[in-house]
């Protein structure tokens, strides 16, 4: 029996190069797409929690007599929180969880690229979260009677694609930083929720903030992505927009390049550093 297994191992076809990269991406994306749908309570909470915040902020706007388009701003912002939460908890701090559960050492020992693993996490997470975000938009729009007027579908799709690429690139980059963290990873992720909702204008137009605060917040891809999407789907969006949509698309393109290149460089550096300092298997609880 044992010899049969050894024979099977020796005769199995070795996959290398881009094929191995692709197989790793698919393998890591699989649990994100399939596994997350199996745990029904996760689907419920992923939609239910942002919906609670959406409803609360919608009723605040109604209590203070805000124009109805602000309700739409909140619904779209609430849907986008699902992506931020996913990047924060399932990208940035993922390598910390993997370390806690003992998988990180296996990832590094295996003959695959860590970049492929992170990319798999990103692709799977993006797909699963998009389903949740769509559910939030549909539910929110039905509950609060939100009307949309799309100015350009092409630009809207381009903005979404660029914002997500840059956002998940940012997540891949920060994942490598979290590689060095232990218990503080949980707290830092926890800390990066409300302040980001504030500076990125999840529940109000970013233009309302100070210009330089908005410029600094534009480093987070969702800030400009959200602003551009609001400009493209609400009639009054353009008047409340921070920058011209074309400028925002250009900035998002630059952010995509910076974050993806930064993720590759930082991951290589941090992996070497973590191995040298013996942090791959440490567990400082």
């Amino acid at each position, binding site marked *: 029996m044992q010899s049969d297994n050894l024979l099977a191992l020796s005769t199995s076809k070795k996959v290398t190069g881009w094929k191995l990269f692709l197989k790793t991406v698919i393998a890591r994306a699989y649990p994100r797409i399939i596994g997350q749908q199996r745990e029904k309570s996760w689907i419920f909470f992923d939609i239910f929690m942002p919906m*609670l915040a959406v409803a609360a902020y919608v009723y605040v706007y109604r209590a203070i007599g805000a124009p109805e388009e602000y309700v739409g701003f909140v619904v779209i912002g609430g849907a986008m929180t699902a992506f931020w939460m996913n990047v924060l908890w399932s990208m940035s701090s993922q390598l910390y969880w993997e370390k806690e559960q003992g998988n990180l050492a296996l990832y590094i020992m295996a003959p695959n690229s860590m970049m492929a693993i992170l990319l798999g996490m990103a692709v799977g997470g993006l797909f699963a979260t998009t389903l949740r975000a769509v559910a939030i938009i549909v539910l929110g729009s039905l509950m609060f009677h939100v009307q949309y007027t799309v100015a350009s579908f092409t630009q809207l799709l381009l903005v979404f694609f660029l914002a997500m690429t840059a956002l998940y690139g940012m997540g891949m980059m920060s994942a490598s930083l979290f590689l060095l963290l232990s218990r503080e990873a949980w707290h830092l992720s926890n800390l990066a929720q*409300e302040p980001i909702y504030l500076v990125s204008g999840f529940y*109000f137009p970013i233009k309302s903030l100070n210009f330089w605060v908005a410029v600094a917040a534009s480093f987070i891809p969702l800030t400009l992505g959200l602003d551009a999407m609001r400009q493209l789907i609400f009639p009054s969006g353009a008047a409340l927009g921070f920058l011209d949509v074309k400028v925002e698309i250009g900035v998002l393109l630059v952010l995509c390049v910076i974050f993806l290149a930064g993720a590759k460089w930082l991951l290589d550096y941090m992996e070497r550093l973590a191995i040298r300092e013996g942090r791959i298997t440490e567990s400082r609880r």
Partner: protein
Amino acid sequence: MNRSEITRSFVMATWLGWQVESNWTDPFLFAIYVIIKPLANAAILVVMYSIITGGDYHSPLFPYIYLGNAFYIYVGAVMAGVSWAVIDDREHYKTLKYMYIAPINIPFYWLGRGVSRFLIGTVAVIITLGAGVLFLHLPLDLTQVNWGLFLISLIVGVTMLAMMGLILASITLMVAHHFFLIGEAVAGALYLFSGAIFPLEVLPVWLRPIGYFMPITYWLELMRRSLIGEVAEAFPTLSQFSNLQLLGILLGLTLLFALIAILTFRWCDHRARELGLIDLVSNY
């Protein structure tokens, strides 16, 4: 039940909870961590309010929203703090089974674990209120505060939140560790239904009874009335009740939730022991 066992469990858990919450970093970073989150949360509401009203901070609605949001920090802190102790001990540190065989009282141990979050929450509430007074003209005059009502409401309210936390902790004992915590989910839901950041009249009629059944609604009203009396009276939600009536309702509901907490703990504890869930590790 041995009195010293209760005291020992509570005090030891308070110390342990504080260590778990605070010793992951240096005091400076921890202080920033404690301050930034609640201030950002309050700032979101302040920006939303100022965009629409053009910065009319003298309207009674502003202190209503601001105070409700500030004191709601306690709800998340105490309720989620108590219930989180179960997950933390069972799944992360894997010490719940040792707690069970130690000579301690488990419900008081969980309540003690929530104290650290209560202390952190207190700092956050004070800073949020301070920022409101200093920068946003929050009409809070310390010489006009009804301190007696404030202290009694605070003590009864925190006890009520601890009882709700104990109910959630007992339920948590029966379920696997999920990404979103039961405590946070319930706190999030009650944020919507307890009139924390908008008067209950804004909710659809069929949703309002949930708010009227929740003790948090009455507690927040009492906190507002004790700090800025005329603000709370500007809204019709509970204007027909006197302070004493509100306090009576809050006390009654607190006793009811305490009874539910005892019964829930007994049942969940028994089931968890029978099903072997005390050392459950779901690895999520």
